[in-house]
Every structure is written in C-alpha cells, then in structure tokens.
C-alpha cells in the first residue's frame, strides 16, 4: 500500500513511495468541497454583476467578468488537485459544475432566448403546440421538424406544466446540460474507475469553448448530447457486463441511439464514429473481450442502420441541409491550406483577423496546452494499457481523444474554421477531457512522488500542486471563453450592436418579428440584414433568403435589383436603420455579404432610403425598423 495511490493504468512498481504509517485508517473526508462550491457560486455572482455593469454601460465590467470566471473555474481545480475527493464529493462537484455554468448562461439572458438559432426551434415548438402534430413546416430551418426531440419534450412540459415555450425550454436545456456533464463523469468513472479523474474530466470538459453558452442554448444538439453520452456509457457497460446483462445494456444503448438519431443529425454521425471506434478497440482483445465486441458490433451496426434510415430515408432534408456545410469545409479548407502553405494567410488563429490581440494570445496558449495534455494523456495511457486486455475501452477512448488534431487543423485551414471547430469541440472534448484529466492526474502524481522522494516540504508541494491545477484549468477556461461563444464583441450583454449575434437581439427586432407572424402571410419572402432577417424567418414565420445582400448595397432601385426581388421571390424588405449608424461587429451586414470584412462605417443612408419611393408601401415602422412591401416590383418582372 502506498501513501498515494497510483493513477489508474500504471503499475505500482513504477512508484517508490514511503510506506504510510496509517495504512488502515479510513481517510478523513475532505472538507474543502463546500468551500469550493461557495467560491464557485461567488464566481457566478461576480460574472452576473459584471453583466449588470455592462448592461448599464459602466466601466470595469470586463475585469469583473474575468475575475468571476477565474474564481468559477479555479476553485474546483484547486480542490480536485490538492485533495482526494471521495466519490460522493466528486458526484456533487460533477453536478455543481454544469448547474453553476448554467447560472452564468441564465445571468446573461434571464428572461428570453438571445441566440438566433434558438428562435428557429421555437418556431417548430410553436407549430407543434398550435397544430398538435410533428413534422410541420419550418420557414427558417426546414430540417428542424424532422429532428423534433427537443421540441417534443419542450412542448410536452409546456402543455402539462402550463408554462411558456421559454420556461419549458429553459428547464429542458438546463436538465440536458446537467445530464451531459454527469454522463461524462459516469463514463470517465466507468473507464478509469477513479472519481478524481472522472470529476477532473468534467471540469476540463466545462472549459470547452461552447460549454457555457452555445451548448446550453435552445438548439437541437443540446438534447442529443446526453443521449450520445448515454449510448456510449451503455456500450462501455455492455463491454463489462455479464452475459445475462448484455441484452439489457444493448437495449439501453439502442434506445439512447434512437433518441440521438431523432434529435440531431451531426450528433448521430458522431455517435456512430464513437461506437465504431470503441467496438474496434474492444475487438482487438481476446476471449471475453471478443464476445463483448460481438454484442457491441451488433449495437453499432443497428445504430448505423438507424441513422442511415432516418437521415437518408425519413429526414431527407438533412443531407440537403448538410451538403453546403460539407462543401464549404472542403472548399475553404483547401484554399486555407494553400494560403497557409504560401504564407499568405493573414491570421492563423481561429478567431479571425479582427479579434483582440490578448484573445489571440490566450487562444494560442490554451490550444497548445490542451494539445499537450491530451497528447501526453493519450501516449501515457496507450503505453500503460498496451498489454492489458481489460483496458481496451480506455485505449479506444484515448485514441478518440487524438481527433483533437483534426479539429485544430480545421481551425487553421478553413476560413470559417473557428465556428465549425467550436461546434466540433463539444464532441471531441468528450474523450479529450478524459485524456487531459488522466495526464493532469499523472503529472501531479509523479511530481508528488518525486517531491516526497527528495524529502521536500509538504506545504511547498501543496502550493506547487495548487498552482499547477489552478493555472492549467484557468488557462484552458480562458482559452475556451476567448474562442467560444458569445464572440468577443458580445461576451458581455449590453446595448444593441449591429451584426453581433446576442447583442443584436433586442425588443425592436423581436417585436417586429412578432408583428410579421400575425400580420403577414407565412412563408412570404423577406430580405433584411442577417440578424433581423433571421428573426423574421424564425419568429416572424417568413422566408428569409440568403442572396439578397445586393438589395441594400446600391443608392437606387435599378432593373438589376428588381430582377433580384423577382428571382428570389422577395415580397417584403425589412430595414433596420442602425445599419447606417454602426459597422457590423461580425464583419458582415448580410448573409453572403459581398463586402463582408471590408466595412469601415455604416451603410450610406441613401442605400436604405431608396425604398421610400412611389410604388413601394412602407407597411410597418417603429422608427428604427421599417418593413416595405415590394410585391409590385416582384410581380412587375
């Protein structure tokens, strides 16, 4: 028996530790967890306070925001790496991390959704509540009704609980957020059998760029994530189960695979990849491993047919929806790779050319640190499990974690790689967080052994461990925040900004969308800037076309513009006059904006004033947003 138990996967012979005098004494439960939870809650309060300051346009909000985040992430890191958390403590922390991070999310926008994509799913939920059936039409995201997992659960809670879509959606998303994190805890515990590594994996996963916001929005991926993790967990249980329990775990795995498939397309593709890799890893073993691999293979094959059947058969729109994304990745990756090779690429960070310099530096440091941790974890883990048949799942998990390299390449090569990679982080970091957690635990453990063998001071050892854990987790979290969501210009809430995602949603465009949904024909074509157009397409139930930027980029209505109106079947043009007053924070005013990234000021006023002309009725105005009826121009052509 050693004073410090070796991390899972390493032989005891590796260690030379002084024997523990109190070997039979039950370890005293650590008392640090409640203090860590208190500190984390204080961190959330600081962040909420920074949001309040930012809304009131007060100074120092940014400083307070970062202080709050450091406290939120640093305190659990210190607790985990300086104590030996029991399983109960680890479970409490694994639940507290998502709950408190959801607190940050809710503090940002406590009374309404603020993410554009969320309103697309609101439309599907509204359709279920009004038409009482699934698979309705969605004018903004046509594929959404074919993946109605989130909307079914939300509408059921809304109807039975008598609450609004917003309240029901907030509860459902919060629950999914907790289930995702706790599922990662159980999965890591199942694979490593050590609560410390499991809870550390949850903490590292919580530093993932989209964890606090994007993965807690009312979007379909959020409900699919817990089922993906549940399915992988069921598969790992299946691998270890007795022959009597295998059928049960296979059934659970298939059930959760079905729930994933009908909830989100990309998540179900990732699930297939995870299942296939783990099955292959298990199949490499012998004896009982092989027998389990047969069951796992059967589950994987059934999942593949389930996903193929749903996405190719029933929800055919999914492939049409995903094709442009895949095309964009291929196209921009090859051009980006050429730019990188020739040295013509203006930026190699995934943040884009306009990102603040400190953000870029933090991004580089955090990405490098994460790569290092995952690589070390994977290499040490694979080396130590090479001869162990029972660790085949761990091997598979560690191998999966190396997919982080693909993600980093995508970020560097593709022009819109930041967004794509940011979304992929949610998947890659499931095995990645486990690998990094293993590496962190191993580093602290080895350092502790080396320290004790040299008979150095225990208190100094503690300080070093605290510093290592604190700096590593805080650096990863800072990196996650800088490259994650919301973008730097909308990181703190506040007054309206043009083309700034969450900061571009306000009462003007929300009420305008509400007005169009009750007064204009559903599915009628509308052209606008990308935020207002997105809202009119989702909440407003209109059809927002992507190739209408040219309508706003000239001082006169020319025959060419009339042609665009007729060709794109635009019936209404919504103009937010603030596009003449501000530059777009994201670089673009419109979808497929030909001048995107080149704006140095708002658009000239005559570009939007041209619609105040004979033959065009201005049917709506609130002084800021005006909606014009251009049906006459469209039909004239």
């Amino acid at each position: 028996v050693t004073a410090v138990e070796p991390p899972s996967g390493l032989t005891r012979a590796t260690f030379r530790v002084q024997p523990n005098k109190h070997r039979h004494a039950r370890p005293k439960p650590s008392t640090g967890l409640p203090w860590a939870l208190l500190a984390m809650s204080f961190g959330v309060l600081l962040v909420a306070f920074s949001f309040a300051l930012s809304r009131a346009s007060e100074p120092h909000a940014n400083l307070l925001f970062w202080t709050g985040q450091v406290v939120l992430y640093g305190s659990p890191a210190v607790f985990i790496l300086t104590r030996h958390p029991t399983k109960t403590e680890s479970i409490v922390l694994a639940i507290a991390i998502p709950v408190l991070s959801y607190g940050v999310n809710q503090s940002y926008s406590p009374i309404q959704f603020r993410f554009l994509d969320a309103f697309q799913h609101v439309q599907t939920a509204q359709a279920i509540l009004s038409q009482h059936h699934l698979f309705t039409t969605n004018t903004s995201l046509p594929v959404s009704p074919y993946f109605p997992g989130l909307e079914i659960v939300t509408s059921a809670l809304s109807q039975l609980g008598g609450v609004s879509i917003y309240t029901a959606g907030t509860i459902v998303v919060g629950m999914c957020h907790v289930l995702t994190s706790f599922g990662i805890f159980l999965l890591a515990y199942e694979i490593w059998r050590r609560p410390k590594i499991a809870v550390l994996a949850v903490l590292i996963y919580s530093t993932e760029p989209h964890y606090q916001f994007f993965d807690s929005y009312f979007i379909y991926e959020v409900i699919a994530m817990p089922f993906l993790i549940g399915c992988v967990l069921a598969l790992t249980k299946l691998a270890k189960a007795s022959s009597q329990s295998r059928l049960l775990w296979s059934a659970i795995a298939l059930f959760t695979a079905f729930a994933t498939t009908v909830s989100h397309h990309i998540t179900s593709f990732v699930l297939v990849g995870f299942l296939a890799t783990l099955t292959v890893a298990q199949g490499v073993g012998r004896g009982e491993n092989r027998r389990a691999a047969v069951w796992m293979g059967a589950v994987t094959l059934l999942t593949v047919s389930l996903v193929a059947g749903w996405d190719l058969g029933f929800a055919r729109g999914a492939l049409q929806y995903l094709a442009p994304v895949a095309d964009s990745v291929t196209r921009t990756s090859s051009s980006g790779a050429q730019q990188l090779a020739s040295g013509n690429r203006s930026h190699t960070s995934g943040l884009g050319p306009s990102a603040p310099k400190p953000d870029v530096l933090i991004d580089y440091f955090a990405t490098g640190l994460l790569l290092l941790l995952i690589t070390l974890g994977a290499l040490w883990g694979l080396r130590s499990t090479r001869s162990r048949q029972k660790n085949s799942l761990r091997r598979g998990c560690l191998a999966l974690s190396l997919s982080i390299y693909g993600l980093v390449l995508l970020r560097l090569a593709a022009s819109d790689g930041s967004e794509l990679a940011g979304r992929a982080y949610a998947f890659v970091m499931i095995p990645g967080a486990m690998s990094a957690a293993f590496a962190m635990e191993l580093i602290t453990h080895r350092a502790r052994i080396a320290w004790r063998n040299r008979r150095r001071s225990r208190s100094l050892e503690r300080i070093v461990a605290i510093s290592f854990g604190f700096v590593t987790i805080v650096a990863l979290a800072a990196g996650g925040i800088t490259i994650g969501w919301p973008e730097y210009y909308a990181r703190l809430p506040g007054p309206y900004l043009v083309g700034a995602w969450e900061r571009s949603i306000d009462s003007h465009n929300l009420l305008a969308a509400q007005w169009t949904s009750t007064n204009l024909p559903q599915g009628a074509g509308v052209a606008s800037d990308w935020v207002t157009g997105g809202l009119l397409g989702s909440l407003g139930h209109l059809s927002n076309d992507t190739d209408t930027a040219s309508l706003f980029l000239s001082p006169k209505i020319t025959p060419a513009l009339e042609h665009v109106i007729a060709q794109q079947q635009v019936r209404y043009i919504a103009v937010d006059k603030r596009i003449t007053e501000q530059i777009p924070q994201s670089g673009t005013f419109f979808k497929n904006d030909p001048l995107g990234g080149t704006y140095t000021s708002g658009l000239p006023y005559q570009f939007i004033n041209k619609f105040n002309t004979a033959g065009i009725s201005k049917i709506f105005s609130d002084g800021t947003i005006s909606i014009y009826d251009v049906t006459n121009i469209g039909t004239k052509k």
Partner: protein
Amino acid sequence: VNRTAAPRLLTFLVLFAVAIEIWSFNKAADLGIAIVLLFVAPGWIFVRWTQHSAVMSSLSEKSYWAVLLSVGFVIVSGFILNALASLTRTTWELWSVIVAACVVVGDLLISTRRSQPHQFDGGLDPKRLEITRTRSVDTSSFLSVRNVSLLICSAILLLSALWLSEVSVSRNSRERIVQLSLLKQSAITPTCRLEVGNYTGSTKVLKAQLFGGTPNALRQHWTLRIRDQAQWSTLVSCSDPPVLATVSYLNVSKPIATVTFSP
C-alpha cells in the same frame, strides 16, 4: 417492510400527482408535477426493474439513467402520440395516467419478484452491501452542519446572481417602442387597417394622423390613450393614394414612425 414501504409511498405520490395534474389548480404545482411525470417516473420504473440484476450500482447512476431514459421515453411517446392521436394537453394527460398505471403495476411486479429468496449466501449481495456501507459513511460525513450551511450559502449566492440579472435586464434592456402599421385589407376594396402598438412599458397618450393624396392633406387624426403591450386599430380608406400615416407623442411635428400606402 421497509424495502417495500418506500416504493409504495412513491407509487401513491405518483397517483396523487396525476390527480392534481388533471385538476390543475396551481401553476407551480402543475409544473413540478409535470417535471416528475415527464422526467422521473418513466425511467424510475425501468431502473427499479433492473435493480434486481444489480447492473446499476450507485444511487447517482440510477438517478442519471432514470432521468435520461425518461426524457428518451417522452421523445418516443411523442412519436407514438403523433401517429395515434395528436400532441395536445389531453393526450399528454392521458399519457401521464398510463405512465402512472405502469408505475403501479411495475412496482407490484417488482415487489413480488423481490419477495422471492435471494440468490446470495447469507441473504445479501456482499458487493452491494459494501457499496451501501461506503456510501452511507461517505454521505453522512459530508452532511455536517457546517457543510450544509455552506451549501445553503452557495445556493443563496447563485439565486442572488439570477435575481440581480433579472433586475438589471428589466432596468437597462427595455426599449420604449411604439409600432405603427398600415396594411391593405383586401385586393378588392380600398380599405387599410391602421394599427398603433404601445410597448413603452407604461400607458401613453399618442397622436395618430392620416394624410391622403398629398402628404399635407390631413384626412383624419386621433388622440389615443393606449396601455402598455396593447394595440389600437381602425379601418381607413386607401382610395386616394398615396396615403401616409404618422404616430407621435403630443408634438405632432416629430413623428415616432411613419407608414405609407403607395400601390
């Protein structure tokens, strides 16, 4: 007796919950009961059923699977209800009654199976006994007065953060908006609907004006007193285009918004 009392009590509570749900006397109770019925009950009976084979070792794991499988069950139920009937409140209530009935029947079946002799020597599964013992020691040492006080303080801090955000949003993020619209009512008759909406956060006195022919020819005007979140509308003739309407506060020379009808 102790082993069966808790499940039976829970069964009773579920039935009680369904009754209250149907009665629907209180919104908060409705929501709480709906959460239990949708996100706990279906998975709970499944987990109870698997308890016999001891495939899920800890309470936390059982809770995880109970909630996850419940959510999955709701999704599957949504598809079934969509195919067989419709997704209305009534069908979901009927669904909740069926779930409750399954919980009762399942509980009875499980209890019957439990009463059969144990397969382990000495009457108890030593593995599960060890887990239970470790868990109780672990949990009891964690739940000291000081720790519980600190946990309560943490919850208070979190709630304070949410409260602060809500207050801050309602104070700073509210735009004062007055909407004006002029929509043609039909393709045949030259009639338009003029509508004014007040979203300023308080009752406002507004002046609406309608001009026809040329912008200077005032045809009609109204002084309106509109409550917050309310609209006022009227039908006006659009037979003499272009028609122009404005809305303003008391100073009509500074309109808040202008709309036109120009066929």
